[in-house]
């Protein structure tokens, strides 16, 4: 057995056993015997860390948490149902609010209705103007370049 093999086996000999071949090598090799003593010292140190118990009250705290978890469990099983119902209710409420807000003629005071109507008209005119421009761009995109040039010359006259 070579020293490198012996060192590799020494590192895990605690868990795999040492074997006769390693024993024989250690008998003959001072360096590996020194390494073995270091491994043995490590094991002694590791073994010196004795098992402990958790601090007093640990069990009480744990079972209290477990009881709390058990109390939450029935709700958690149905949680997705509640989410669905809640989401649906919220959506229905939102739609209802929008529907109410949309019916301005029955909600707003009389003196404000004309103002709102005028605003709507302005908004609509603006929209119409933009629609005309958009339609114009769409039409122009369909026209070939020669025709575009002729149209531009005619406008220039």
């Amino acid at each position: 057995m070579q020293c490198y093999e012996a060192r590799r086996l020494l590192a895990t000999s605690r868990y795999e056993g040492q074997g006769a071949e390693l024993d024989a090598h250690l008998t003959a090799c001072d360096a590996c015997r020194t390494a073995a003593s270091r491994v043995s010292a490590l094991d002694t140190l590791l073994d010196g860390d004795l098992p402990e118990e958790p601090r007093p009250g640990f069990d009480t705290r744990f079972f209290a948490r477990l009881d709390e978890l058990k109390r939450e469990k029935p709700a958690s099983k149905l949680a997705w149902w509640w989410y669905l119902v809640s989401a649906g209710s919220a959506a229905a409420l939102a739609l209802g609010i929008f529907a109410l807000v949309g019916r301005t003629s029955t909600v707003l005071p009389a003196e404000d209705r004309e103002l709102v109507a005028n605003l709507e008209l302005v908004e609509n005119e603006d929209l119409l103007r933009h629609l005309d421009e958009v339609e114009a761009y769409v039409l122009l995109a369909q026209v070939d370049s020669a025709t575009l040039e002729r149209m531009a010359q005619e406008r220039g006259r």
Partner: protein
Amino acid sequence: MRDTNHTGAQDPDVGLMLAFQQGDEESFVMLYRAYRDRIYNFCRRMLSRTDLAEEATQEVFLKLYQQRVRYEPRSRFSTYVFRIAANHCINMRQRRGFRESDSEIVDRQAAPDGASPARALEQRRLREQLQNALASLPGQQAAALLLCHYDGLSYRETADSLRISESAVKSLVHRARERLMEALSTGNGVEGDHAVL
């Protein structure tokens, strides 16, 4: 009753877990009492702090309780519960950016009978150095070493717990022990520290 590779007869703890899965809460309490200290000490050595170890231990058993529906007896029960513990502790170490300085020793280990104060102090110092050295190991190395050394899991069982190959476990354990010997032979940066090995 699901019972594929490991039956309750082969591993009584598997039997308890299967009974718990069927609704027998007393079986869970029995498993808790059987594994509480083992899991606690594993967490204590992984996390080097009593408060974190207690928190982690409780989390492990709460997860065991919550995940009972999904339990399948593919291996020994100890492999299963230590898998939960190892994953939890490795994640905690990563989340906290675990450092040697995070370790804290609450010296509740009794001094050997008849030990002098000097001997007791020396024992405490050695445990502190070991704790610091363990804290310096990467999470998987520490977990592999602890499972093999303290909890008596075979390489195969440790591999099962960590979801890695058996050869990877051997490599991790080897490297962990080499690193510990190195850390303990040169001191670990603690003021007034000196070599242990």
